[in-house]
């Protein structure tokens, strides 16, 4: 991608005096990511974005892939620092449909490339795969994108093979809202979709919208007594004290029979890298249960 020199680039040069030196790679556009799912996809394709949002939180609750320290933190996802983004002057900004409302502002800085991964009622894995390929195409990394999509599918298939006895086993994937409520990940969440791909059955069959349902009382977990429960971290502050004394929680068959596991944090609205991470963590937890 070659641009004629314009005012923006002249300015970028002027601003470069203020910036830490960025290793410029020929033919790779400088990318900024507003959406976390896009950020992890970029990193998975070996593209180091020049800027991305909420990196402090990302490193804590999305964890993978590792974000290099050289990536500029743009602040909150919902209210990114446009001035800073302007100074960083990327060639392209990638967002998801959640951030369409920022498009008019972002387009003043650089062309916006948007991908929809999460849509109400639609399992997101295939959309994420399509978004990965589209991003690869856009940024001249078709081969890497194809390879990553295949690797992800292979890894999930391999993990599925390690769970022969668990096939068809129902599993709740939840995040705890507080010590009395949870949010369930249904069929239109990445976790729900990956469960199905692992040969498991999502025990939460009710309608959800955009990944997680409104908070529900824990007693709803009793609807599928034979299900295992996977809790995605982080856990709210008071849960450590109150869950062990919660009579209903302790009466749940899954709790009595030790079929509950707490997973390390995974990005709730992620793309393929999150799908892989979740598949790995979930398989390991379920395998431990099968042996334990």
């Amino acid at each position: 991608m070659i641009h004629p020199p314009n005012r923006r680039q002249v300015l970028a040069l002027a601003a470069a005096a203020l910036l830490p030196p960025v290793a410029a790679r020929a033919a790779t556009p400088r990318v900024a990511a507003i959406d976390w799912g896009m950020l992890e996809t970029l990193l998975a394709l070996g593209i180091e974005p020049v800027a991305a949002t909420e990196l402090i939180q990302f490193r804590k609750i999305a964890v993978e892939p590792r974000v290099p320290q050289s990536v500029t933190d743009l602040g909150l996802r919902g209210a990114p620092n446009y001035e800073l983004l302007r100074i960083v002057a990327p060639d392209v900004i990638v967002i998801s449909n959640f951030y369409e409302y920022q498009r008019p502002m972002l387009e003043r800085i650089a062309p916006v490339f948007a991908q929809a991964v999460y849509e109400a009622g639609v399992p997101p894995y295939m959309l994420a795969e399509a978004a990965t390929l589209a991003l690869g195409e856009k940024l001249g990394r078709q081969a890497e994108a194809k390879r990553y999509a295949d690797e992800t599918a292979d890894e999930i298939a391999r993990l599925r093979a390690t769970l022969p006895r668990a096939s068809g086993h129902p599993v709740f994937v939840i995040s705890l809202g507080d010590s009395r409520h949870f949010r369930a990940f249904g069929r239109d969440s990445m976790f729900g979709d990956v469960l199905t791909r692992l040969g498991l059955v999502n025990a939460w069959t009710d309608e959800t919208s955009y990944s997680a349902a409104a908070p529900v009382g824990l007693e709803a977990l009793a609807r599928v007594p034979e299900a295992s429960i996977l809790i995605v971290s982080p856990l709210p502050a008071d849960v450590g004290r109150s869950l062990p004394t919660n009579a209903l929680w302790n009466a749940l068959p899954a709790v009595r029979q030790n079929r509950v596991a707490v997973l390390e944090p995974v990005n709730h609205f992620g793309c393929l890298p999150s799908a892989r991470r979740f598949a790995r963590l979930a398989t390991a937890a379920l395998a431990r249960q099968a042996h334990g």
Partner: protein
Amino acid sequence: MAERTKSDRAATSAALLPIALWGLLAAVAALLFAWRVGMQWPAPLPGGIGLDRVILLYSTLPRGAVAVLAGAVLGMSGLLLQHVLRNPLAEPSTLGISAGAQLAMTIVSLYAPLLMERSQSLVAFAGGIAAVLLVLALTWRRGLEPVSVVLAGMMVALTASSVSAALILANGEYLFSLFIWGGGSLVQQDWEPTIALTIRLAAGAVAALMLLRPLTILGLDDASARGLGVARHSSRFLIIALAVWMATSVAAEVGVIGFVGLAAPALATLSGARTLRQKLIAAPLIGAVLLWLTDGLVQLAAGSGGERIPTGAGTALLGGPLLLWLLPRLRLLEWPHLGSKGAAPRKASRPWLIILLLFALALVAAIVALVVGRGPDGWSIAGGDLLTDLAAWRAPRISVAAAAGAMLAAAGVVIQRVTGNPLASPELLGVGTGAGAGLTAVLMVSATASPGWQLAGSALGSLAALIAMLALAARAKFGAERLLLAGIAMSALCSAAITATIAMGNAQSYILLRWLSGSTGQATALDAKLALACLLPLTLPLFLAARWLDILPLGSDSARGLGVPVAGGRLMLIIVAALLTALAAMVVGPLSFVGLIAPHLAQLVGFSRARVHLAGAMVLGALLMIVSDWLSRMAAFPYELPAGLFASLLGGPYLVYLLAKGVPRQG
């Protein structure tokens, strides 16, 4: 003779009617509960694992018990607060107790999570009592006059919620538990909360019975109470602390349940409870029925995917209209009106020169905000090409902030002068939160609605709130108190809708949280032009009506004597103020404190006549917002904080100081 029998019979049936009505409502609640129990009744399967039984025992039954107990505790707490403060509008949410408790829990969860695990209810109590003490301190000089107490309470509550919202925004997912809590959910999984609330209710009842005599006397005015030898202040604070303890225990166990504490005592009075003893029995009973019924209805409306409305938001949705209905029936005017208090405001000898100087100062601030900023490499002063480029981002924000500040300040001057209440604030007109309710409605239809639709939703929401409020106030001939109270009720109602949506914890929640905390971050050149273009035509009529603004604070009679059309004049001024507030709220969120503070600052400088007061307040409001917006961009760079939050942090302490000194009435 026949006449007398008839009136006797009428009196008897008048006494029986409320009891029959409450009995009926209780029966409906019981029926709903029985239906839940029936649904959960364990099937007599021999090989069953008994999970149905567990759910019945540990979820369905305790939930019913907690609904009844929490309702009763809130009813009692509200009654004690209302009685001691002699204020029919006092209750945990109007006094800022719930919001204070929530803020305390937010801060502790963030910075001392271990403390939160140990003693949630103690943290909640500390926050609640701090909020009440602040409200009482704010209104002490005004003799705890009811309307001022509630206004101060709402300001404290709004500020606490906005700080909580900002903290939650900056810390992501971790704190969503607090928003579930803010929605108020009665979901139960064991009997612990039931036991805790039973102890509270019993302790409250015993204490109230022991304090019956001082309580009765405290219901009288101060002079009589002193004459009867009651240690007024200490017993008053003792009872307030008791009520706060009861209310925050409910808050800690199940979350924020609004309006039960307000409605139960009022309904007890309307149902014919006359003596304090009767009220002490009736209010908890009515509170219990109200909450039990609401919770039954909320569960009835719930799908299998979860409850659509948290119970606490449900009580507010039912209670808001109830409060609006109650307003004309409450006896508010028993309270002696306070005359001019404190020294006459200082008058500046050359006000227009000072305004010019302040205007120059605001311009300097705007230029500094435009030029000085932080970049990846620290502080920098932009110039040349970089400045032209950054100005395209900074200028709209600065203009929007300044215009919003000026609009809120103008609206504040109008509201404070029309109502004659220095604690009145345009944020409390209900149009600001109405904008939020409209935004919520648009987001419900589509989480990815475009900014244009969001703006249209906000505009329609504030318009609807304005019309509803004016219709209500019209019945009271736009009397100052009714107007403020109608605004408060409207605010509470809209806030409930917003809270219920935020408690869902989805993509919409984040947009609403950001709006709630007041952000100028998305301001475009179009917003800036719109705001600046509306500023002049909307404020010009106020300058032309300056004579009304000078005269209205003197009271209706004097105003009429001087030939001011009181009702018509008030109506026109309020409509303009509401439009100004709605516009400002659409671009910078519902709360900034600017509308409250700028008029006071202007008066302190010495702008006393309406025209200079208006101009001075507008310039000061713009200045305050420019500085706040700049600070919000700089403080946590690159993370942008809400500008409204900084405005409250800048203005709040000053307001406390001002109120503690005793504010003179406007005019």
